[in-house]
């Protein structure tokens, strides 16, 4: 039963990684838009 924890950890880590990556990408694009706005 204990070896199932490997799958659980993998699943939660992947979830956090994907959500962080997606959120981070959006945040990064918003910041780039902010800089472009300041240039205008």
């Amino acid at each position: 039963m204990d070896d199932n924890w490997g799958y659980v950890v993998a699943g939660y880590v992947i979830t956090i990684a994907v959500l962080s990556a997606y959120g981070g990408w959006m945040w990064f694009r918003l910041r780039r838009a902010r800089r472009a706005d300041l240039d205008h």
Partner: protein
Amino acid sequence: MSTRVGVGTKILGAAAFVSLGALAVFALVVAPPDERQGDAQRLMYVHVPAAWLAYLAFFVTAVASVLWLVPRTRSTTWDLLAGASAEIGVVFTGLTLVLGSLWGRPTWGTWWEWDARVTTTAVLFFLYLGYLALRRTGATAQERGTRCAIAALIAFVDVPIVHFSVTWWETLHQEATVFNRDLDVQFEGFWMPFTLIFAVFAFTLLYAFLVMVRLRLAELDEGREERQLEEAIAERVAVTV
């Protein structure tokens, strides 16, 4: 247009973050392991909400697509919302498949199963991947709105058809052994169902936050596209004058 998200969105984000943190505690520590699946069952607390989110997201895309198609309610916002929600939906569909696979391996012994739910989710993933590809063929809502809206509605109607046909196939299939696996997970006691419901709640907050941010981003991109278009036209006019 401001490149910052509104206060409401920030509050949503904070609430989502806190709930997800709490969920991690409930799911990994508080909730007991399942009798048969053991700790693998804890993946259900992310797999099920992810699937729910995907369907919610695609539902929002369908509604926004209808609102675009109806001339009286047509507005760029609906097209942008449809796209934003679909993108989030695809991310969560992919997550659903991966988490389901991670759950299936210790539980069923296989990484994949061609049953109705898994198969339909895979088809769903590609249906909306195609939709996202279609969205990139038009820089402004005017150019891509109608064809994307119709593609989204076709996809939305197709999903239950796919699910139904595969389910039907399962029930007609001769080999009972393959499809008689106990695919339904039991949530017993208090903490299991509580955690599951809390997970759905937390993920819904997350969806609301993500879609608002993604929509803002889409609005900025759209504004920039329209500005570039206007500038290009103005240049052309200046040359001819």
